[in-house]
């Protein structure tokens, strides 16, 4: 029995190390930045982030985005440095122990214009043992669509309080996107869709099926 458990664990470890290898190599030595000064500055920034325990993959991705978009060396350095600062800020806002994905989502939310206190509120409104990535991502998308952050937060936290699941939160974002594509104003789309999810959450049948995953744990 124990052997059976160890084999999948070993396989998972090997797979994890294989999939992580290109990323690590990219982050440390083979960033395709032609300018030596820029490459060194970005590598230093990544090393500094790593030493602080911050996720480095978003920094590598940001540098790659700059390279692909033919940004100047100065722009790439500034972008990576700003992102490192946002990651640090997001980690503090999502304390005590956010995952790398949560920190990255928090940093993106800040970049999109979600005010820092709201990032904190989203964390507080979501069960502490569940990843807050999806609520943060949907909040980011709604704000990027031009919906006032306070209204988006109000709708999201109402759904969270009623026990919405991550997939329901995500569906809210997709539905708003479809409505906007169909010509509805973003905030009107949010109102309509949030009410739709809310009505589902209020129904006894849905409540029963959603409760185990979505409700806040008892304090």
């Amino acid at each position, binding site marked *: 029995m124990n052997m059976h458990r160890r084999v999948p664990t070993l396989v998972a470890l090997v797979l994890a190390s294989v999939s992580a290898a290109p990323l690590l190599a990219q982050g440390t030595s083979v960033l395709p930045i032609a300018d030596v000064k820029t490459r060194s500055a970005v590598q230093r920034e990544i090393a500094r982030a790593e030493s602080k325990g911050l996720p480095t993959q978003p920094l590598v991705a940001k540098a790659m985005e700059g390279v692909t978009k033919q940004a100047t060396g100065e722009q790439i350095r500034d972008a990576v440095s700003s992102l490192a600062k946002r990651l640090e800020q997001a980690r503090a806002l999502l304390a005590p122990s956010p995952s790398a994905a949560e920190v990255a989502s928090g940093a993106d939310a800040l970049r999109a214009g979600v005010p820092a206190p709201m990032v904190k509120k989203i964390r507080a409104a979501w069960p502490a043992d569940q990843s807050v990535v999806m609520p943060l991502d949907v909040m980011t*998308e709604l704000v990027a669509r031009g919906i006032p952050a306070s209204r988006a937060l109000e709708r999201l936290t109402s759904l969270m309080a009623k026990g919405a699941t991550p997939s329901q939160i995500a569906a809210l974002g997709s539905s708003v996107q479809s409505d906007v594509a169909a010509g509805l104003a973003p905030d009107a789309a949010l109102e309509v869709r949030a009410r739709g999810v809310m009505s589902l959450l209020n129904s006894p049948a849905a409540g029963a099926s959603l409760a185990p995953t979505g409700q806040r744990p008892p304090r």
Partner: protein
Amino acid sequence: MIRHAALGLLLIGAATRSVAAQALPEVRLEAGAARLRQPGLGARGGEEASDAALFGIFWRLPTERWTLYTSGNLTYARDSLAAAQGVAALSLPWGRRSNFRTDLGVAGAVFSLSGAGDGGNTNGFARQHYVLENGGAWGGATAATTLRGTRWNAASAFDLGGWSRFGFLYGSLSLSRLYATDALLFETAGLLLENESGPFEFQDAQLVLQLRGGPHDITASLTRRQTIAGAEFSQNALYGSATLQLTDRVALIGGAGRQLADPVRGLPQADIITASLRVSLGPKPLPVMQRSTIADATVEPLAGGGGGELVVRVFSAEWLEVEVAGDFSEWRPVPMEREGSYWVARIRLRSGKYHIGVRTNQGPWRAPRNLARVRDDFGGESGLIVVP
């Protein structure tokens, strides 16, 4: 003068894209033909026109801190005019996020003008810009000297202007005060002067309107000149031009109208009709026909839940190269496949948030039109999509 006006518009154009995220070195060659008529010349007082050949080269070299613009032009008009002209201008932003920019430049020309003598011109200019996203203002000064035969003529100009953008329409309005001693230049325009030694003082008001659609543009320039001292006349001049980008590297440029005498650059008044071909060289050609590129991105949920298939569709010509990139590809460009009239990419993604960009022919990265847009830290934007 046409070339200087073009350079001015180029500098304004560069200012509107001051972030320069997509700025690349560029070399353009231009060749064309023109028909010129100078009102004070010819057997019947300006009724005689002459044909001209035009050759030009333009080079832009952007760096992180400044952009160098240089251009050279050679004009030869049968029986009336031959000129070689060079311009070098340095555009210096005061900082990456500053709204201020200083342009400094020098220009020189040698010419042989029928009725206006052989000689040369040299001038230097400085212009201070204040640039916002959709508008700006500038003030500048130019000092020049022109040698015509054995006589040196001085000229200077001070100008103030502002420009604004309303969607596809760009407009600028400027006022210039000019001082000159070049009597011969005005006489070739058929103008009556109070004396032959000057000085002459003029005031020009110029309105420029430009319609831009992707790399194409139509420009109209209306100039009103009034004398202040040394002569008594007023003139109006209208000049129109259009640029049609035929391929990613080749553009057709045409123009017609009147150019007033320019004492600062030593160029005579002329009525001009011109057509030329411009070829862009360099590492990356201009993006072509952006307006014909319409991109959409949607997510089809995968059976069984968790993740989805991102489908990006770009309605664009078959002969264009179309790519998509984003976090999902670590921003490595992924070529799209042709399906009917569309370029399509289908990418399986896990649940999460993704930034996406689409580009055609190595042009700027754009967000698909139906997605939320976020600034990308490089002066551009990315589309944002959340996969349930």
